[in-house]
């Protein structure tokens, strides 16, 4: 099992830089999820790791060995394709055995490993079927099984659940997590689905336009998004983001947004343009008077999600999203006042889009910059 290091990796297609100077270390046993919107370069990055695509520049090291120019067949990785890529002319059994045939494993061992993988994934009764005779979920299992029969350095998966229906996806998510725990192997998993990322990852890498926006645990990514992009991408509904500014008054830092000013915390800071962010579930009715950020608007629309409800509040020209329990009675067209505690307010520098962190003793360099 292996550690994968990526140094300055870049992929330049004709006039498009799909992956832009990425540095990333994937520790042994990590379940790393590459998360980002479609077209952000996830597949390209994964294909470079797999050896299916030659990087324009940069390096890939597996366990310290430079594999940048090693062909795919010599990297000892296993990959599950988004299309599953099951060989259509071979039965499930032969599909599972294919990597072992290539490795010239003995007949008994091959049988044992194929049956082992089939048993682990509930494929025993399907061994003689051809891929076209399988449902989407069964195909997905065979694709995973084909990766499991070997003992690769790492498992690479490109959106393996995107062709499954919602229920099967939930089950398979849990199974993949269990698989990761059992094998304690390194997984690199590509998805555009934040739920998959949040539920399975030990480490999420958020990509945007070929660059890394943030690397962190699911908690870090959700609780402290490193940029406006991450804040808007992770979470459902996405974080409320309002343009505003910071200033100081009476020894307190205060934020102005949507025409109202609110006190954040004691301290001083120069005038600064910021984006103020807060999550829908942190907009609380009981903080209407006390919150650091306060909202006073009209309910425009209500979505009932079963367990909870999402309200869209019109404040001037802006829409703010709030999430609360079903026990609260909301009515369209009614006035809605709520607030967010200072601890739940996120501030982002408007110029760079990056997160701003309040530290009690500002470093001189940072103070100068602001």
């Amino acid at each position: 099992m292996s550690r994968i290091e990526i140094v300055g990796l870049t992929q330049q297609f004709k006039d498009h830089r799909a992956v832009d100077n990425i540095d990333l270390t994937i520790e042994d046993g990590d379940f790393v999820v590459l998360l980002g919107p479609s077209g952000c370069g996830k597949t390209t990055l994964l294909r470079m790791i797999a050896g299916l695509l030659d990087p324009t520049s940069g390096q890939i090291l597996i366990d310290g060995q430079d594999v940048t120019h090693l062909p795919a067949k010599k990297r000892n990785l296993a990959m599950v394709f988004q299309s599953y890529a099951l060989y259509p002319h071979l039965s499930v059994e032969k599909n599972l055995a294919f990597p072992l045939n290539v490795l010239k494993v003995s007949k008994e061992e091959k049988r044992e490993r194929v049956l082992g993988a089939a048993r682990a994934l509930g494929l025993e009764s399907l061994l003689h079927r051809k891929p076209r005779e399988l449902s989407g979920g069964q195909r997905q299992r065979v694709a995973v099984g084909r990766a499991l029969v070997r003992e690769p350095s790492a498992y690479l998966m490109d959106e393996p659940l995107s062709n499954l229906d919602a229920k099967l996806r939930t089950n398979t998510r849990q199974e993949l997590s269990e698989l990761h725990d059992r094998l304690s192997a390194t997984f690199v998993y590509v998805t555009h689905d934040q739920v998959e990322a949040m539920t399975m990852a030990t480490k999420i890498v958020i990509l945007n336009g070929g660059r890394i926006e943030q690397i962190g645990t699911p908690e870090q990514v959700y609780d402290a998004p490193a940029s406006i992009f991450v804040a808007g991408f992770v979470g459902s509904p996405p974080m409320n983001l309002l343009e505003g500014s910071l200033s100081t008054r009476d020894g307190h830092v205060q934020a102005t947004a949507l025409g109202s000013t609110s006190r954040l915390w004691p301290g001083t800071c120069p005038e600064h343009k910021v984006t103020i962010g807060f999550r829908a579930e942190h907009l609380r009715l009981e903080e209407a008077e006390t919150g650091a950020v306060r909202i006073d608007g009209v309910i425009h629309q209500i979505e009932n999600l079963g367990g909870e409800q999402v309200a869209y509040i019109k404040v001037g020209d802006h829409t703010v999203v709030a999430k609360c329990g079903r026990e609260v009675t909301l009515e369209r067209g009614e006035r809605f006042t709520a607030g967010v505690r200072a601890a739940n307010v996120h501030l982002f520098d408007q110029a760079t889009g990056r997160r701003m962190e309040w530290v009690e003793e500002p470093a001189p360099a940072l103070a100068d910059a602001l």
Partner: protein
Amino acid sequence: MSFTITPVPGQERYERIAREGEAAVRRWRKPPIAPYLFILPAIALLVFWIYRPLIETFQLSFYHWNLLPTAPKQPAGLSNYTALFHDRELGKAVINTILYIAAFLVCSVILPLVIALMSRRVSGRARTIYQALVFVPFLVTPVATSAVWRWLFDPYDGVIVVVLRKGFGIDIGSVFRSDHGALIAIIIIVGWQMLGFGVLVMTAGMAGISPDYAEAASVDGASNSTILRRITVPLLSPTILFLALMTILLSAQWTYPMIDVLTQGGPDNATTNIYYLLYEIAFNNFDAGMAGAAGTVFFLVFGAIAVLLVKLSDKLAFYDN
């Protein structure tokens, strides 16, 4: 207090819809006529130009007739068939036809496979140009092709003859006058034309195979030759079989114009094939009955081969989805 069971909403209405649906099915049983009208012209042409002559050929094979409209047709029983099987030239024509087919299988299946595989390594514009160059000969009409090659093989100043004589000291002389020379020359000419067709079909077949399979295999550790043997060629087998079928069924036809223009089957039947023989029986010997018998026999043999190959290709076919 007691429980009530929540009824399934609107079930009664569903039943009514289902009952109406049944009636609708009954009403639809009467097939609409429009689709048949659309294919009627094609069917009419097929019947008039293919099936009618086929039946007439079969009928003719039981008569003696010299093709003169005024001459009467004499009933002949099976004598045309016995005469055909005793014809000395039939054996030669069949052997040549098999030789042609074997050679063309190389030109239209094996070489195109190799060329299509190699052209994958060429990329961009160069590949298009390269494939176009291979395909162009197929677009030249057979008679024009024959004329150009006859000129290239001219015993006195043909380019090929002169280059071989001056460059390599080999004198091939008058190619179309020597038995083997003429046969080989016709194979080269027709093969050169068929190569383009084969490459085109093979390239299309390869383009239909998702590159994911080869990539998955290479991540699984397979070498290029393993991928070719275990993945690419098996997935191409429907295409390969289709080309083989076309070659076997059509090579006698494709060769016919070259034989007619270049050698007239000679020297001494060295280049004849079954269709050229058929033509000679009918229009040189004016023996419509025997030509009908030959036509019937060739039709049955090729028909049997076609059925066999189509069955085989059904078995090999896979559905990529």
